[in-house]
Each structure stands twice: as C-alpha cells, then as structure tokens.
C-alpha cells in the first residue's frame, strides 16, 4: 500500500516582506492527507503567514509550498482557494448576505444549481449544529459569536474541500463554547477525513485538534511532535509555553 499522499508540503520556505526582516526562515514540513497539524507560537512568530502561503494569499520568497504535490506557484490561485476551506478568527462572514447565501457562496461561485446549493447548505448547517430552518434567512449580525463561528465552519465545508485552514477560529469565544466547538470540529474532521492546518494560541486546543503540534519561534519551525510527546518536549520554548499553560489552569 502506498504511503498517504502529502496534502501540504513546505520545502525550505522563507518569506520576507520587501526589504523587511525575514518573517519565515527555512520552514519545512509535510502534512499528509487526513492529518491535522496545529501551529502554535507567540504573536508575530509567523503562524498566520504559513496559512496564507498555503492558499497563496502570499507567495514564498524562497523555497516551495506544495499543495497536492504541486507548487502553489503553478496553481491557478482561484482554483487552489476553492479547494481550501478557510476560517478566520474574525470569521469574515459577508454582512449583507443571509446565512444561507454565506454558506452557499463557494458552491454558487462554482456554478452549482440553486436546488443543489440549498440542499448542501442545509446539510452543512446541520453538521455544525445549526437548525437550517431557524438560520438560513438570518443575517450574520443577528447571531451570537459562537453561532457565527459555526457558520464560518459551515461555509468552509460547503464545497467539500479536502483541506481546511483555520486561523484561531475560536479565539474570540468564551471557554465553554470554545470547548464545545473544538469537540464538534474534531468529530467532523474524523468523520469527513479532512486535512487541517490550524493556527492557535491555545495548547489545549492544539492537543484536541492536532494529530501533531508544531511550534513556531521567530519564523522557524523549532519542534513538531504528536500532542503527548509535545507536552514532554525538552525544547526550552515548548517548556515555556507548557509552563504558561499549567500556571494558567492552576489559577
């Protein structure tokens, strides 16, 4: 049997803004299909840049980013992005569109028939725990933060992309809603066999969602391990992060 194919691969990737200091230096990793990779690190360490390199919102200054084995340089940007579900912390729902239109946007861009879009919208809203009849006709501003995040996840899933990118998707939520959504997302990932790259500040979140955790420090990937081993890592920055966590939970 062949080894699982790589969904995302970074080969010695560097990124810098014009004439600025390097934001990423020599980052290499592979995320295989069905795997979920959680990136943690301090603010400004370059985590979000990694996500934006995957869907070509940014292009590497050096090295190569491969999606499905093909360099993002050789992908048509629009085709590439439609295969990738993207969830941001601020969600970025379109305020002038109903929930149904928001969730159905990628299928509609892809030219699905209205009846097929509607069926799919209902299906994914159910997946994320929002009764379609109550939500489809409403506007994003009428929803709570947690509900908006669910809609964001539903939108990312709508066109059934093989790959999901999430940038602190639950960062703005209260701890209970957050834990709830993490569990549900975990369940969905397993059921739908999605590949996920998620950026988070939150180690428990990384442990719940990630099949491996990577630590980014000053633009470098300094450690990458499965959750249990990650927590026991001897790397000083990992220990600093884990220590901050235990202080946090004890208080």
């Amino acid at each position, binding site marked *: 049997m062949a080894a699982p194919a790589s969904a995302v691969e970074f080969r010695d990737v560097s990124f810098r803004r014009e004439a600025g200091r390097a934001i990423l230096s020599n980052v290499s990793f592979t995320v295989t299909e069905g795997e979920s990779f959680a990136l943690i690190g301090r603010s400004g360490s370059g985590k979000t840049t990694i996500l934006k390199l995957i869907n070509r*919102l940014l292009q590497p200054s050096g090295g190569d980013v491969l999606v499905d084995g093909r360099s993002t340089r050789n992908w048509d940007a629009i*085709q590439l*992005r439609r295969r990738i579900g*993207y969830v941001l912390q601020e969600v970025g729902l*379109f*305020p002038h569109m109903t929930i149904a239109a928001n969730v159905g946007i*990628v299928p509609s*861009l892809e030219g699905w028939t209205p009846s097929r879009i509607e069926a799919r919208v209902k299906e994914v809203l159910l997946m994320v725990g929002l009764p379609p009849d109550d939500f489809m006709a409403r*506007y994003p501003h009428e929803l709570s933060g947690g509900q908006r995040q669910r809609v964001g996840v539903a939108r990312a899933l709508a066109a059934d992309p093989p790959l999901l990118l999430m940038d602190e998707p639950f960062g703005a939520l209260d701890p209970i809603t957050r834990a709830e959504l993490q569990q549900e997302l975990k369940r969905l990932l397993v059921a739908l066999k999605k590949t996920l790259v998620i950026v988070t500040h939150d180690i428990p979140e990384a442990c719940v969602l990630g099949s491996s955790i990577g630590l980014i420090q000053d633009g470098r990937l300094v450690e990458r391990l499965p959750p249990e081993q990650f927590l026991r890592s001897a790397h000083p920055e990992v220990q600093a992060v884990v220590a901050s966590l235990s202080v946090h939970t004890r208080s």
Partner: protein
Amino acid sequence: MDNFLADHSRELIQLSAEHLMLVGLSILGAIVIGVPLGIAVHQKPQWRTFVMGFVNVFQTIPSLALFAVLIPLPVIGGIGARSALIALVLYSLLPIVANTVAGLSGVPPAVRESAVAIGMSDRQVLWKVEFPLALDVVFTGIRIATVMSVGLATIAAAIGAGGLGMFIFRGLAMLDTRLILAGALPAAAMALLANYGLSLIERRIRGRYAPTERST
C-alpha cells in the same frame, strides 16, 4: 394672490418639469461617470490625487461663472440646457466619487480577505462583496448631489436652460417677490422631498443588515 396662482399655474408645472429633468438627467450622468471613477480610484490608489483634484476643482468655481464659461465652448457649450447639464454633472461628481471611494474603503479588511481566500476573482470581490457593502454610502453621495443640484439648477436659468430659476430671475428683474417665491418655494420643496425620499431608500439598503454597525 388667487389670480397670481391661476395665471402662473401652467407655467409653474412646465418649469417644475424642466427643473426635474435638469436635475434627474444630470444626476444620472454624474452616477454613470462618478461611480466607475470612484471604483477606479479605489482599485488604483495612485489615481486618487489626480481624480479627486479634478472633481474638487469644479466645487471652487462659482456656479454662475461655470455656466458662463460653458456658453462660448463649441459642441458641449452654448446657450441652453446642454451647458447647464454639463455644469450640473461636474458639480455632482464630487460627492458621488468621494462617497464611492469612502464606501469601498470602509469595507472591513477581514471581509475582503475572506472573499479573496474563498476563491473570488477581483471582479467578484468587487461586485459581490465590496460594492454591495459600499452601496449605502454611495447612496448618501447621490442624495447630497441631488439636493445640491436642485438648488444649483435654479441658476441654470441664467443661461437659458429653463427650470424654476426662470421665475426667480424674472422676479428679480421685475422686483416681484411673488414671482421669486413662485420659483424658490417649489425648488426648496423639491430639494426637501428628494432628500427625504432618497434617505428612505438609503435606510432600507442599510437596514437590511447591521442596523447599528454603520452610521455614516
């Protein structure tokens, strides 16, 4: 007074209709030119100084002078409604262009980014996301331009373009206050009505979503 109204009612209707035509056509022209210009400035910020300078200049020219300047010009100028329309379009450009630019740049960055990230082309980002979200602010510009040109159009009578200004100028020449008011009052009413009607449409656009988020 009864006699005055009876004597002038037909003319009043005629001049009001001319006035409406002047305002309606010039606003239509200003939308057709101004909205694409605003979009162009939004997409090519390096054009901003030039375009905004261009539309600003007309605001600094006194309207009577601009009407007068257009008279001797070939093709676009001359005595009559054509010159007046051109002047009114030029005056209406500023609020429409400025509000189009302001509306488009007021779209939250996270919304724009997620539009790009889900695989919209530049054109789709503009027409499906940015422009619909800017529409209420664009409409504010159209409203301001409309109210302004109802007033300005009275001056167009000075170059033979007709409209309610005819009463005003005739009244001034004949020292007849009733004639002046016969032009000024309907013009003022027209401006107020336009303002009210257009602000209703504006509120409807805005109220469909986020009734409190934006209050420009």
